[in-house]
């Protein structure tokens, strides 16, 4: 009974939060609601007994991904409401309904046809952190390693992109030097045709 109550409570909360994220015109509401929604999703993992995945959901999505979004939002005034440009609301509505129907269809079909079964069922003898480790390092070793290499590539690319002028510090420069550098930069941009 508790599981049913918890499921419907968190289902309603999750849908409510993500509805706010999509509908609101206030960037800060969207950010907060999305972070809260990510936490409420972890409740489903806890209900299913997947404690490890639930906690990882909180750490990765709420703790890291959403915090990075928030970091990006520092660059505009979050206390004002955003006015979105909607040129063709009917197309947006149509595409939205279509996408939602497709997702429901994709998720419902294996349940309806009765082909839903666990390929690697839970082994009651080991805890679920160990079970995830065993599956990752046996059945999914190659995708796991590929993901690790891709993250490494992304990290190196990020450092290369961000670290271009790291040896110069604008804070320590004299005003004239900054003016000189920015003048060179603008003339270069003009040559390359950057507007």
């Amino acid at each position, binding site marked *: 009974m508790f599981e049913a109550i918890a499921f419907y409570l968190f289902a309603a909360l999750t849908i409510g939060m993500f509805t706010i994220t999509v509908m609101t015109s206030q960037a800060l*509401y969207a*950010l907060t609601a999305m972070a809260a929604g990510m936490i409420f999703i972890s409740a489903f993992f806890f209900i299913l007994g997947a*404690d490890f995945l639930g906690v990882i959901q*909180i*750490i990765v999505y709420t703790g890291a991904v959403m915090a990075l979004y928030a*970091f990006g939002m*520092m660059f505009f005034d*979050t*206390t004002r409401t955003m006015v979105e440009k909607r040129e063709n609301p009917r197309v947006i509505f149509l595409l939205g309904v279509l996408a939602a129907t497709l997702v429901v269809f994709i998720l419902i079909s294996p349940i309806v046809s009765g082909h839903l079964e666990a390929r690697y069922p839970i082994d009651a003898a080991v805890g679920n*952190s160990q079970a995830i480790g065993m599956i990752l390092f046996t059945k999914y070793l190659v995708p796991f390693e590929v993901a690790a290499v891709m993250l490494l590539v992304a990290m190196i690319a990020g450092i290369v992109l961000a670290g271009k002028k790291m040896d110069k510090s604008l804070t320590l420069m004299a005003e004239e030097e900054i003016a000189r550098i920015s003048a060179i930069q603008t003339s270069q941009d003009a040559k390359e045709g950057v507007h």
Partner: protein
Amino acid sequence: MDGAFIIETIVKIVVILLVFSALSGFGTYVERKVLAFMQRRLGPMHVGPYGLLQVAADGIKLFTKEDIIPQNVVKPIFKIAPVITAATAFMAAAAIPFWPQFTAFGYTVHPIVSDINVGILYVMAMMAIGLYGPLLGGMASANKWSLLSAARSAAVFISYEVITGLALLAPLMMVGSLSLIDINNYQIGGISHWIAVSQPVAFILFWIAAFAETGRTPFHLVANDHEIIDGFGTEYSGMRWGLFFIGEYANMFFISFVMAIVFLGGYGDGTIAGALGLLLKVSFFFFFFLWTRAAWPDVRPDQLMRLCWKVLMPIAVVNVVITGVVMMLTRGNG
């Protein structure tokens, strides 16, 4: 799920809430006294004997102050941000064993709200969410100092979470479990079995990161009084500001518990001596937070970032690799 279990859990939650709310208040008194003695002052002396009732006076002041909400703030977010700080701090307490289990009036009490098998990860996750208090409070405040503080808190938390995670990884590899009770039981054999002895590097790294996670003095730039006023708390007053305060002090207590349990043997074998030992270790870590505040200046944000990414993170990664290699070699022989 029977009635006794539900009642027991509710009682534990209420006890933890009350005890640690009171302790956070008392923590401010201790902090003021310790700082005062280290600076050759007397500290609070006027309210009650040795200023002991200062806490009550401060509490009454905070509770009865008018709750001012400035005009240009984003109201719902502004209102909820302090609650997030306090709530996540206390939610983290759910997986911390505060005391070994004991029998009182023929009833065995486990002084932990829920012994989930991913305890330490859960505590870390809750402390990670604690970031949203300063972040949302600062962004909703319509104040430049608050916004700066929000940006700093996001940067500091994200960076130092990497250090806490990597520092904890090495001990967790040795223990082979994420439950705080298992970690405690791993070190049951006495001081030579403590993880601080076998993993001194991880211990020091985690300790440094704990200062950043709680925003204490060498890394206090989230609300650094002399550059950004009170940071995210600038626009707050009364009990909303008080909730930020309670959250900060509760976090200090809880991270002290985590350090004592993970690295310094926790409550040991569960005797009274072990339990008192745990409280002594926690008090020492709490005192160390205050001691550092009296003894050290603050670092600049760029120094903090350089320390994190160029010094601490490489050390933490090397520590994990060395632990792995040593474990592999010793397992191979045995």
